[in-house]
């Protein structure tokens, strides 16, 4: 029975292009949830210990199969394209703000970035990394990240994102910014002018 369950789970994972919840597998297989979770765990170990070309991963709240990164060069030659084009700095910044502040409006993104976020947000929408999430009280469209975002970034949930404090500017950077804001004038006045 348990070999059968593992076999069935492997087939179901193969057929699903999106991450699937363990509960959905339980419903489809008629097995108990805990049996499914155990079966998935044994499948994960099988791929890992037998050095298979596939990896079982927990993404966006569900389970999905992907290829092993070691096989990437051959996959690239076979499919003749990189899997996910990289993000431009503007797109990455916009995505970072949405990921951490969601739901967040476009004007708010622009305020934080100091520049317009129009084109970056459109591209992220088109690539389905972010989506609309209603409107703010002032009528501005709000954005949040999608499950595809979690999938592409290898995240099980948003909780797996590092604490935003991790990215706080180092104390010396903050001190330097403060310095520049308030004392640059004096510093220049006493220093030798010129670039």
């Amino acid at each position: 029975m348990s070999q059968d369950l593992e076999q069935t789970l492997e087939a179901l994972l193969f057929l699903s292009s999106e991450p699937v919840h363990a509960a959905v597998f339980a419903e489809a297989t008629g097995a108990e949830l805990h049996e499914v979770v155990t079966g998935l765990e044994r499948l994960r170990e099988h791929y890992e210990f037998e050095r298979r070309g596939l990896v079982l991963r927990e993404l966006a709240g569900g389970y999905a199969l992907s290829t092993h990164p070691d096989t990437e060069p051959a996959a690239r030659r076979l499919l003749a394209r990189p899997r996910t084009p990289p993000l431009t700095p503007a797109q990455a910044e916009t995505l970072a703000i949405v990921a951490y502040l969601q739901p967040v409006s476009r004007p708010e993104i622009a305020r934080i970035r100091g520049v317009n976020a129009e084109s970056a947000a459109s591209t992220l929408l088109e690539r389905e990394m972010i989506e609309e999430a209603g409107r703010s009280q002032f009528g501005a469209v709000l954005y949040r990240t999608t499950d595809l975002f979690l999938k592409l970034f290898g995240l099980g949930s948003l909780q797996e994102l590092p604490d935003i404090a991790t990215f706080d500017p180092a104390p010396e950077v903050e001190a330097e910014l403060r310095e520049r804001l308030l004392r640059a004038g004096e510093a220049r006045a006493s220093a030798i002018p010129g670039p």
Partner: protein
Amino acid sequence: MRTPDANAGMRLVDLELDLDVFAGPFDLLLTLILREEIDLLEVDLAEIVIAYIDHLERRGELELEAATEFLVLIAALLELKSRLLLPGVEPEMIELDPGEAAEELLVRLLDAHRYRATAAYLQGRLASQSGHRFRSAPPPAALRRAVLPDATAVYDPAMLAAAIGGLLRIPEPVDVRHITVPKVTVAERLAHLRALLRRGGFSFDEAVARADRVTVAVTLFALLELHKRGEATWTQDEPFGDILIERPATVQAGRLTVAR
């Protein structure tokens, strides 16, 4: 990680300005503004932007980090200035002392830095995932075919009739007769207001009695023009109340003293 000299972000100090109210490096101007030694209202921010663009052109390269920082700073200045230009809207913001203004700019800069670092993390994370590919083939059609016996009634047929009813409705023809080409000009309204002023004070409601919305808007524009030229002054006792317009009580060397 960053030292006060020799890095890309610091190149902003190379930006030398020659403005009407100030000549010198950009960051000195910033400091003077924040200390209220120079009135932000007197600074032409567009000139600074043009100077910066010239500066970039001379350098022949766009340093992204420095450019972003410049944009953050100039945006913060613009916002401060626009608040100053709208007295009464947010009185507490005008009270912003130099320390607070600097603190606000600092918070902006720190946020910008923080999310730039987060962005770098996400880019790295995406790159590290690029070896994981997912199967995108649709499952075989035979397995997908919905099983009729499993299907239950979940939709209300009335929805279909309602949709058809909506589609049968012939829309009212759009009436465009009320749209007329506005013919009123600022010059005309200026003449109108000046005529009223010659008779003494008047109220804005009186000046635009029975006028259409476009005329009201153009009249307000003309009134702003009169105010700018020092030909008129106004009082408004409460928000959305009527505006009383008068000639300035005294005009001294082109400077205006508001009559109360």
